[in-house]
């Protein structure tokens, strides 16, 4: 036996094994590390930076609660954040880093803007993942085997907005959305739903983001026949210019705007500030009620005492972190397949309803079935891995004021009429 040859062969094999281990996914190496490691692929810079900042807050609140309750499997959970910048290339790098380099035990995100560009990579890795985004493209692609979506889909949200318009007596509406993925997804679901409910769309405006002026577009929007309402979604940066220009049109006072959850973000309020006293804006977002919401708000206030309300979308992240942490706790392991195998059991009935990691953990450790009901809704996922929730209605001006709810039953009724 030639020791030198054998030694070199061992080195090569060992090197290959090390390289292979790097790409083997989360279970190979992360299982050896203490403490559950979450990886968040979220936009911390760029056009939708406010989304990432708010999601991060939700994750931090959840982690504080988890670690305050003794952590997952007795060890503190940790969070690694990679910036997707809201673009596909950066999202690909972020996912590759989190999965291939950091070997996270669970993935949070990406968001609607980038999720479809990396979903295959995520699902192939087997890393348990909760995507945070409403794009309808996830309806059939989440699958519910190692990835889920606990936040609403535009397939539900669009009919909900259409129903909101009809309930407010608006029968003729326009659509004004920017060309980003989330807005386009919403447009595709609002229009047929509104028509099915007896409404008519007077015109559809596609707004290029980041323009120096939207005056010509507004001229078209307010042209005869004047719409009663406008289904509106735009990223806050672009919306700032839009509202600034909209203030130059007297017709702004005669039209109601129906917005998505974008419309109640802090940046959206700032964007709308010049016209806040003139615009009638009604927005749909996560329902602000329920014991899950209360538990979240209490935890959020403890972590961010200076804020009067939880940041927009932070509830989605709180739910995602808690569900994955509880799944790992129930599985008794940080193995990817083991965690994935328990997500449905944690998120869905039957089981005793609980609303935070601290509340659910002792029940799980006692061998009880639990049903985590979170801040953004019940988090009950269907066979496709998607959750369906109700919504809160908000009047948006200088502040955001709750103005009612649309329950999941209301929305299902609207969806049923759409199918008829």
């Amino acid at each position: 036996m030639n020791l030198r040859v054998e030694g070199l062969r061992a080195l090569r094999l060992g090197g290959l094994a090390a390289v292979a281990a790097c790409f083997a996914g989360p279970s190979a190496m992360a299982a050896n590390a203490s403490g559950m490691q979450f990886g968040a692929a979220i936009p911390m810079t760029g056009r939708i930076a406010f989304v990432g900042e708010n999601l991060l807050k939700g994750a931090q609140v959840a982690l504080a609660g988890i670690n305050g309750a003794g952590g997952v499997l007795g060890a503190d959970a940790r969070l690694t954040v990679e910036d997707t910048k809201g673009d596909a290339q950066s999202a690909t790098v972020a996912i590759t880093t989190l999965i291939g380099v950091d070997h996270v035990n669970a993935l949070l995100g990406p968001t609607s803007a980038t999720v479809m560009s990396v979903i295959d990579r995520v699902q192939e890795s087997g890393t348990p993942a909760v995507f945070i985004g409403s794009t309808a493209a996830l309806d059939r692609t989440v699958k519910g085997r190692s990835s889920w979506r606990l936040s609403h889909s535009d397939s539900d949200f669009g009919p909900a907005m259409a129903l909101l318009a009809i309930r407010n007596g608006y029968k003729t509406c326009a659509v004004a959305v920017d060309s980003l993925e989330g807005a386009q997804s919403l447009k595709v679901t609002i229009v047929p739903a509104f028509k099915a409910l007896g409404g008519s769309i007077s015109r559809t405006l596609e707004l290029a983001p980041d323009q120096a002026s939207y005056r010509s577009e507004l001229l078209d929007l307010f042209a005869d026949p004047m719409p009663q309402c406008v289904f509106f979604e735009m990223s806050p940066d672009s919306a700032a210019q839009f509202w600034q220009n909209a203030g130059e049109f007297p017709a702004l006072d005669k039209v109601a705007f129906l917005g998505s959850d974008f419309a109640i973000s802090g940046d959206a309020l700032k964007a709308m500030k010049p016209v806040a006293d003139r615009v009638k804006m009604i927005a749909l977002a996560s329902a602000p009620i329920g014991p899950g919401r209360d538990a979240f708000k209490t935890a959020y206030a403890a972590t961010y005492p200076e804020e009067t309300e939880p940041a927009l979308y932070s509830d989605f992240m709180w739910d995602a972190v808690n569900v994955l942490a509880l799944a790992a706790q129930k599985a008794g392991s940080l193995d990817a397949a083991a965690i994935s195998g328990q997500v449905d059991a944690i998120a869905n009935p039957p089981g005793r309803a609980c609303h935070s990691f601290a509340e659910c953990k002792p029940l799980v450790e006692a061998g009880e079935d639990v049903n985590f009901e979170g801040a953004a809704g019940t988090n009950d996922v269907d066979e496709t891995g998607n959750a369906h929730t109700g919504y809160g209605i908000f009047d948006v001006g200088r502040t955001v004021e709750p103005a009612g709810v649309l329950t999941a039953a209301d929305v299902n009724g609207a969806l049923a009429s759409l199918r008829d």
Partner: protein
Amino acid sequence: MEDALTRLGFGLLTGTAIAVPAVAMTLMWTSGRILNLAIGELVTLGAYVTYALWGIAPLPLVIAAAAAVPAVVACLMYAAVFRFLKGREVFVPLIASIGMAFMLNNLVIAVWGTGIERVAVPAALNASVRFGPFMATPLLLFLAAGAALVVAGVALLLYRTDFGLRARAASQHGDLAEVSGIAAFQVTLAVWALAGALAGLGGAALGISASVTPTLGATLLLIIAAAVVVGGLGSPAGAVLGALLVGVTTELSTIWVNAALKPAVAFVLMAVILLFRSGGLVRADLEPRHA
């Protein structure tokens, strides 16, 4: 017809908003064939300085600071980086300028964050007025007049003063200018200071009339560059003409074309102009012939 005239008016307003930064970009080009893409961040910086001092300092001081801070930054950029890249292939300073842009943008974010900020302007200044088919606010008209004055002032400076003569000499033949007793480096530095100040003033106007965000300058960069190329690289008058033409064309195009394609219209215009006049609409009178 009335609708078209209204959009024409909108286009002129858009054009005046980008004219001053477009002149800034052209001036930087004349100093040594440097296409400085960090000009967008100088615009952003001017907007943030305006936001930071608004309501705290008197208006003249706010405007002066909005011009001075980017002017200093522009000088630093030239002295530390770009003067060593003069005479190189065009893409070399271009790449360097992209790096500069990233640095400046991150600096702005580090200081002011990523949120949307507003300069509080009296509501009366934002109330729309109509002149036949045209509509505008008093604020926009004031800013357009201000832009015209600034551009006129730059023209006077470049073509009616000794400094302008030196600047043109240094841009057209730096070595000969040195031999003739013109301190080319100092003159070029002064041109960059002027360009930085113009970018800052453009940012101040945009910040006052719209909103202040870290992406303000970057999102307008392409349309500013299109204006400069359409008008003619190296011609300040061309930059102004290009800005107005780009503004008018993009707004009028919405009559026939989906508004989502507005950004593309600017580049189609650029391609068409360059097909028939490769140097742009106006012959460059400050085109550098030698490094």
